[in-house]
């Protein structure tokens, strides 16, 4: 159990002021975040105090997908960057590395589906999806099936839109049940919300110094690095109010965010 503003974990639903306070004092304790990505470099100095609960690699094997335990180390650097940002925002959240993306930053739909389902079944509360699959009709059903399963189980999905146009459909960020995240041109740590937009949330993601492969750091720009900021904010709130379902979290988060304005857009 984590501590709340009043000293205990709360079972009810918060008022907006209580949620705001939770987002300020919450640490992510008791919350599990699955990083569906290229793996996580657990020994990275910036992740020294990160609790990694699972480390699983998914790969194809003769037409099926197998999960290999304790093999979720990073193939590329991207997942380590995501985990590092998440750890900064919600330092006590537990992270699971579900490696579905290879060293060329490529994945396959059935690998992603297997990785996500495993994370759901292992009881993760948040799925951080700093990836997107091109919005072609043939990809809708496989991704919608797991997104729906997460929704029904009360698992929060946070997903990045494409790096260059948040209106261009990608899965899962363009599903209405998913908290879609765009990049905001800002150095502010705030979250921003845009109504009437499927990818409603945005956060800092430009020229961000991130943890990378080999214990190093990188300067990266992309929606991938805005997404864990939103996952981290959700983890903070959930650590105080663990029972908040995804629909309510969307409402809470949108109310706590600053209004989006065109000055935040890189599409100018």
């Amino acid at each position: 159990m984590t501590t709340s503003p009043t000293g205990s974990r709360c079972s009810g639903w918060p008022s907006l002021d209580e949620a705001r306070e939770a987002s300020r004092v919450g640490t992510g304790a008791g919350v599990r975040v699955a990083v569906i990505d290229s793996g996580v470099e657990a020994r990275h100095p910036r992740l020294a105090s990160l609790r990694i609960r699972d480390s699983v690699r998914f790969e194809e094997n003769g037409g099926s997908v197998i999960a290999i335990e304790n093999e979720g180390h990073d193939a590329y650097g991207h997942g380590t960057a995501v985990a590092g940002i998440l750890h900064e925002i919600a330092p006590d959240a537990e992270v699971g590395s579900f490696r579905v993306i290879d060293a060329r930053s490529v994945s396959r739909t059935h690998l992603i589906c297997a990785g996500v389902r495993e994370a759901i079944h292992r009881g993760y509360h948040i799925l951080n999806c700093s990836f997107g699959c091109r919005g072609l009709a043939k990809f809708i059903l496989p991704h919608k099936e797991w997104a729906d399963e997460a929704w029904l189980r009360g698992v929060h999905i946070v997903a990045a839109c494409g790096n260059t146009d948040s209106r261009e459909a990608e899965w899962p960020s363009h599903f209405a049940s998913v908290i879609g995240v765009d990049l905001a041109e800002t150095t502010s740590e705030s979250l921003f919300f845009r109504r009437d937009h499927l990818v409603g949330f945005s956060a800092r993601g430009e020229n961000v110094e991130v943890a990378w492969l080999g214990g190093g750091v990188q300067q990266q720009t992309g929606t991938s690095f805005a997404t864990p900021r939103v996952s981290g904010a959700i983890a903070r709130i959930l650590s105080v109010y663990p029972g908040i379902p995804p629909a309510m979290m969307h409402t809470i988060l949108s109310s706590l965010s600053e209004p989006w304005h065109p000055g935040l857009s890189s599409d100018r």
Partner: protein
Amino acid sequence: MIAPDPFLSEHSAVVEKALARAAAEVTPDDFSGLIGDSGGSMLRAIREVVAADSLSIWIADVAETQLVVTHTEPDPGFVGWSQSLGEGLTSLAYASEQSLCENKVALNAAHSKRTDDALGQVTAAMIATPFYFGGAIQGVISCVQLKPSPDAPDPAGFSARSMNRIRRLSSVLEQLVNYRLLIRLFEMEL
């Protein structure tokens, strides 16, 4: 992909297939003829707007084993340079079909230093964005900021807005190349 012209609409599937076939047969050598002077002007203008030292179009060879530079601004000396599809950040953008923007490229193990070494340069920042035509990915558009030596201070770097501009350039060039491929098809077959 095909405009909803009532005359063409019932043939759109056939035309799209023909376009895809024509695109797959485009080699790096004959690509420059498809972008022509108007495409070249766009590349020059965008390179200046994003403050890149160099902007290049890479096309995958027919065997899809290498990316080959088919057009470079401002120095055409880079044309013909090739890189394995398993190597470098441009290949990463090609394989993942995602745009990337990095401002400390030398720190990324995925960056190929072979090109820098051969050209006697140090890449400090890079944008790489997928380039499509004929309905499929065919290559990558990249732009870089260079520095004279590894110890020299880093340039200003690229912004998310720069990445968007390169992505939009890629979309406009896609339409231009599709149009020119269609013209070829019409002349040859219709």
